[in-house]
């Protein structure tokens, strides 16, 4: 599964780790994150993430 990077702060979403503090289980792909999920580092929405090369 691909990692995604927040273009507002550089946070990297790694699907293998998920975002357990915000209720996202390890193994959750970026596409499967809920629409209202925000960057745990800086607070911007999913639309500011880009897939890492």
């Amino acid at each position, binding site marked *: 599964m691909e990692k995604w990077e927040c273009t507002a*702060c*550089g946070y990297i979403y790694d699907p293998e780790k998920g975002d357990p503090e915000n209720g996202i289980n390890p193994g959750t792909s970026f596409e499967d994150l809920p629409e209202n999920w925000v960057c745990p580092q800086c*607070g*911007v929405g999913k*639309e500011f993430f880009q*897939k890492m090369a």
Partner: protein
Amino acid sequence: MRVIIIGNGLGGAIAAKTLREIDPEVEIDIFAEEKYHYYPRPNLIEFVAGDLPMEKIFAYSEEWYDQQKIEIHLNQPIKKLIPDSQEIEIDGRKREKYDALLLAAGSFPFVPPFKGAEKQGVFTLRTLEDALDILEYQKNHNKVAVIGGGLLGLEIARALNLRGASIEVVEFYEQLLPRQLDIQGSSLLKTEIEKMGLKIHLGLATEEILGQDEMKGLKFKGGEKLEADMAIVAAGIKPEIKLGKEAGLETDRGLIVNDFLQSSDPKIFAAGDILQHRGKIYGIIPATFAQARLAASNILGDKKKYEGTVPWNTLKVAGLFLTSIGLINPEDENQEEIREEKREEGIYKKIILQAGVIIGALWVGTKNGVDHISRAISEKKNIEKWKDSILKDDFDFSLL
């Protein structure tokens, strides 16, 4: 080596972070005009809307800067650059020496030259300070005119609507989002926004802000008037080139940089809204992010070329998703467009091709396939063989 960064928005913050990632030793100093730590500007909209408390808008904690050994000097506007001696002058007093300088001072809101723009109740939104001023004034002034139907204008409109204000958006062009949409997409978007209770006026040129000390309305070319007790001007941005220009750096509309993001002085680099690269001024997050990363790398001697960024915007208004990538209106006869509209479902998709290669797309009302399309555009993929099927509901995007 000491790198000085002017500006603590996205460009400055990401450049500082990247410099530290590459080099644990380099000295990094950020000078910021604002008194607040870095916050992503999209968070201002959520803050104005009441969806994000002020303490949550910031990206990095104070401890983070300490850990990263990044010296940050807030509320310290720079008065002058002295390229000959590689110095900057702070507030007319102190001078600081650099080995490399990064100009990341961003841009400021463009206010068209209409009469009465200095009246009380006329605002722009760029900084946290602006957002606080707007919220304070809106408490007692609830009839808001938003001048500009671009991305920022519509987002402010949505945010203040959530605060209970009555909103009228006034756009100069005959469509919303003139840079990201076409007429057909705009018409769909307008319908959705109006369902939320916002009013939209297209093709109106504001000529004057009416009222005595406090603004009371707008007057348009042709004589039409609109009553309002508050106005937000969202008519685009202008690069903050004053410092660079006064120091003799080459400027046009923006600060001119080469592919290595260097200004006409090789020790001075730039990233973000301030710069003009191959004739273009971007003013969008993905471009600034890429530039900040590359500028940091180039400053440290690892030469990397910036090849430009495919304009890429997403907007969520009234629960309607909208994505606009690359070129969205054909510019000559070698380019063709294919489209699909399902008006009753609020879905509109369009692709621009040049000799079979996908160079732009517009996705309204759906996000399905948008990541694949976006990647195909950045890879300049030839999609000729899927021309007839790609906009159908059952198209398998993994083929791309």
